[in-house]
Structure formats: C-alpha cells, structure tokens
C-alpha cells in the first residue's frame, strides 16, 4: 500500500506565521505554516484580491495542477483569463486550510518536539482557519479582500470571514453551504471518524510514527461522505442498478454494482492523497460550525449592518447543505440589513455541482463579481 504523501519542505509554496495562532479551544499554535497558491497580478493598491477557500478534502491547487498528487486543478472552469474569477483582472489566492495536509500545518506536521502532532494537534474550528488566513493576508501586505469565494467548507469560511472581519471583505460568495452544520451531517462525519479510528492501522492516531496508514478506515469514511455529495437522481442517472463488468449478480460480496465499484474507487484514490488525522480534525471543525450559536443564537447578529455584499448560491438537489440552509443565510443577511442576493440553481448533480459544469451558476457568479468589481472601482 502506498504511503499517504507527506509534503516535503520545498514541494509547495508556503509562509510561516510570525506570531502564534490563537485558537478557539483556548490554546495557541506556534510556527504555523500556511501553504498557498496565487494566480493573476496583484494591482498597485492591492484591491483586487479574491480569496478562494477550498472544501473539506480540497487543497490550494484550485487553478493549477497539484505537483504533489498530479491531480488537475479543482476549479479550472471558474478561475482563469476571461472566466468568472478572471485572472486578467483579479489576484486569486487559495490557501490550504489549517489542519490540512497539503503543506499547511496539520496533525501530520511535526510538533516543536520534532515528532508528528498526530492527536496532540489541538481541535480547530472554521473560525481558527479564517484567523490563519487573515494572518496570511496580513503577511502578504494585503489590507482587505475584494472577495472571498468558496463552496461547502469554503462557503463556511466565506461566511466566517464576513462575520469576523466585515471591513476586510467587500464581497462574499458562500456556495452550497450552511451557517450551521446539521445533526444529519454530524452523524455522517461521525461514521467516517469511527471507521478511521476502528482501523487497527490508525494506532491511536500515531500511525505516521509507526509507519502505517489507516487506509481502510479512511476509504470507508470517504465513501460514506461521498454519498452525501451526490443526489439520488444523479446516482440513478449515472449508475441506476447497473452491474459492473458482469451480466448477472455474482452471489458474492464483490462490487457487483457500478455504484459500489465507483464508491470503492473514490475511497481508494482518496487515501493516496489525504491524511486520516487531517480528515478527523477538519470534519470536527465542520461539525462545530454554528455561526448563529456563536452569536447568541441569532444568525443575523453575525452580520449586523455588514458592509459586505453577499451572493448566496445553492443547488436544488443538494441534500448535504440543502437550499433551505442557503435561504436561511439570505434571510439572516437581509434581516441584518446587509445586501444579499440568493440563487437556487436547478441541477441533478447534488452538493458537488459547484465543481461541475453549471452554466447558470457560472453566469450568476460572474455577474455578481463583475458588478461588485465595478462598485469597488476595479474597472471592466
């Protein structure tokens, strides 16, 4: 079995935060490194920055191939010359989230004692991830973002940015996301975490030091979560009850069905690129995300008199973060007096639609960013 790749020091671009990072859990993290990528020129007054935030298992390679895994960029449809996140016009920054495993400090990184943090890594939150990004932006000499854009966990970060630093966010685009991770979603992620921790190769989290990898557990975690990223209709369209490389059922526990084969493939390819402890920590951060809870139970209070303009985008077949969650965000923003747009895109592609070809989604995003850029004086 292949080892989960650990990132070598010079493999990806990163910077080290000068000050220890304070965390919601009460401790602080020293010597935090954040891996990041950029595309497009930064303008003279540094006013054209769009921060792109990745989803749960994503990374900073939004618009160029990942040199470590060889995987293609995950948002090539949206970032590039003439695309909605136009690199002829905007300076795009994407960071690997705190707790991640593509060069940013996470549980697979070495602690000050020279050994991997493993489960000694503190439990982090989405707010901590955003604090880390704010430190990066400051280190790069950028005072404010033109926009923060992201789907799923990336959308949570967009909301958190607007709540934490309203004056630093001119526009925010939370996509296929929620302000409050649901019990159903916590349940799915708990299944995944338990699968990882039940794998004997997890070694109480200490698998790196013991040169092992809980690949079976991590693959199952990915399989369970992946189901929630697809719609029932999408699965039906793609696989229905189709058999894989056979004409009749085998009366065994082989992957008879195409959908089984597909999920097994998703699980297998995931373990080659993702660290199991990172998965535990990041899903935990997502579970803890409750922006209303953090503001006295009233979501609108997170955005009171916010100067940010928002474009909330949902997909109607998304049952991971259903449209009702997006409407709730738009409603709270409106109640708070913020300028909010809301669009529910019709698709059978489920939660993962924001990675795929969705012309109306792309047109809405482009229209919103264009208008905001004009308001920001970024020209055409």
């Amino acid at each position: 079995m292949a080892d989960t790749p650990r990132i070598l020091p010079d493999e990806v671009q990163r910077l080290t935060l000068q000050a220890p990072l304070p965390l919601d859990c009460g401790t602080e993290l020293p010597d935090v490194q954040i891996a990041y990528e950029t595309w497009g020129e930064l303008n003279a007054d540094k006013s054209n920055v769009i921060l792109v935030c990745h989803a749960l298992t994503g990374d900073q390679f939004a618009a160029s191939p990942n040199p470590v895994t060889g995987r293609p960029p995950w948002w090539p449809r949206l970032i590039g010359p003439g695309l909605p996140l136009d690199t002829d016009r905007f300076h795009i920054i994407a960071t690997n989230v705190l707790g991640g495993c593509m060069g940013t400090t996470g549980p697979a990184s070495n602690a000050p004692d020279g050994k991997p943090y493993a489960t000694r890594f503190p439990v982090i939150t989405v707010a901590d991830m955003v604090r880390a990004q704010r430190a990066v932006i400051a280190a790069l000499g950028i005072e404010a973002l033109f926009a923060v854009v992201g789907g799923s966990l990336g959308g949570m970060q967009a909301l958190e940015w607007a709540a934490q630093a309203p004056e630093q966010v001119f526009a925010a685009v939370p996509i296929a996301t929620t302000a409050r991770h649901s019990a159903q979603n916590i349940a799915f992620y708990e299944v995944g975490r338990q699968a990882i921790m039940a794998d004997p190769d997890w070694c109480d989290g200490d698998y790196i030091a013991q040169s092992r990898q809980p690949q079976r557990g991590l693959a199952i975690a990915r399989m369970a979560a992946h189901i929630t990223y697809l719609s029932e209709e999408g699965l039906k369209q793609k696989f229905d009850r189709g058999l894989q490389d056979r004409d009749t059922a085998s009366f065994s526990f082989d992957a008879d069905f195409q959908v089984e084969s597909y999920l097994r493939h998703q699980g297998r390819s995931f373990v080659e690129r993702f660290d199991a402890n990172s998965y535990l920590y990041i899903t935990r951060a997502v579970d803890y995300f409750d922006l209303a809870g953090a503001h006295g139970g009233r979501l609108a209070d997170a955005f009171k008199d916010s100067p940010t303009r928002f474009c909330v985008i949902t997909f109607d077949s998304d049952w991971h973060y259903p449209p009702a969650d997006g409407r709730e965000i738009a409603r709270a923003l409106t109640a708070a007096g913020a300028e909010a747009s809301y669009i529910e895109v019709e698709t059978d592609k489920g939660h993962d639609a924001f990675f795929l070809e969705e012309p109306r989604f792309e047109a809405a995003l482009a229209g919103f960013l264009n208008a905001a850029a004009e308001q920001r004086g970024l020209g055409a």
Partner: protein
Amino acid sequence: MTRADHLAIASRVPERARVLDVGSGDGSLLALLKETRGVDARGLELTGEGVAACLARGLPVIQGDADEDLEIFPDDRFDVAIMSKAIQEIRRPQHVLQELSRVAPDVIISFRNYGQWRRRLSLLVSGRMPAPRQGGWHDAEALHPSTAADMADLAESLGLKLEAAAAVSGPRVGTFRAGGLTRLNWAAEDVILHLRRA
C-alpha cells in the same frame, strides 16, 4: 426597448429611493430605475432564469416567492415596493399587498383591468371570461382576475390610500391622477396604482 409602463412607474419613484421590485423578472425595471433614478435596487424573483439575469446585470436579487418570502424583509426596509404585472398571478394577493405596505410606505402595482368596457362587453356578449395576459382562464397565471375598482377597494381595506392612478393601453400610458378611478375602471386595459400607507 423600454416599456412604457416601466417609464410610468419610474416617474413615481423618488431619486435615490430604496426600491424593492417583487417579481423583478430579468431586472429590466430595476435597471431602468437604477439608471434614471439612481435608486438602491433590490429584486425578489421566483425563476432561476430571472434571478441569473438580474445578477448578470449586477442587480441584487433574492430568489423567492412573493406569497411566502416577503417576510424576510424588515419593516420599512424600502421607500417604495413595486409589483408589476404579478399581483393577479399569485396565490394570496391580499397578504402580499399587506406585506408590500409593511416593507415600504409607498406601493406601486400594475395589473390587468378586467373592468375595461371591452372585457365587460366580451363577457356579456360571448358568455366567456376575458382572457388573462397569457393563455386562458384555467392557466396558473390567471389566479385573481380583478378590476381597478376591486383592487382599490382591497387597498383601502388594508389601510392604503390611493395616491394616483394611470391607465396603460398598449404602449400608451395616461397621466397619473388622484381621482377618476371610475372612468379608468371603464377605459383602461391595464392600470398602475400608486398606493400609500395612510
């Protein structure tokens, strides 16, 4: 091409007002108001197609249903709430009119006037309901056929005063007048009512 009724509605909207257009469609009225009146524009639109078109024009818009979603807007969030050619096509016109007047002191609505003499005559002579804007009486859009006088009565019952009314006949829009509703109810194909919370 700018629709005559849009220009007429725009003439009732003060400069730099905060405007909500309910059923904003592709955003053409809001775009006109932004351009000619410098308003702070906001749309509420049911269709994804319309919402995408509004966003493409740079207009803030919320995808939602007039019958259900006006409640998201705080009291007096706007100076003017507009509903152009939609109030007869929703499930709860009374509720929606009340909501419009909650979110803005000034309400402008335009709709088809089934009191027009041709339509009255048509029903009398043919024994068949005058057609709604599109399709027949059975279509989903044709929920609440009403006359200008009906609508004025409803508005009054909700504590709204008729500020002014104008007739729209084809591409022609008449002058806004405070009175003369009876004549309008007889002659106008479509009407625009400017209502104000009393």
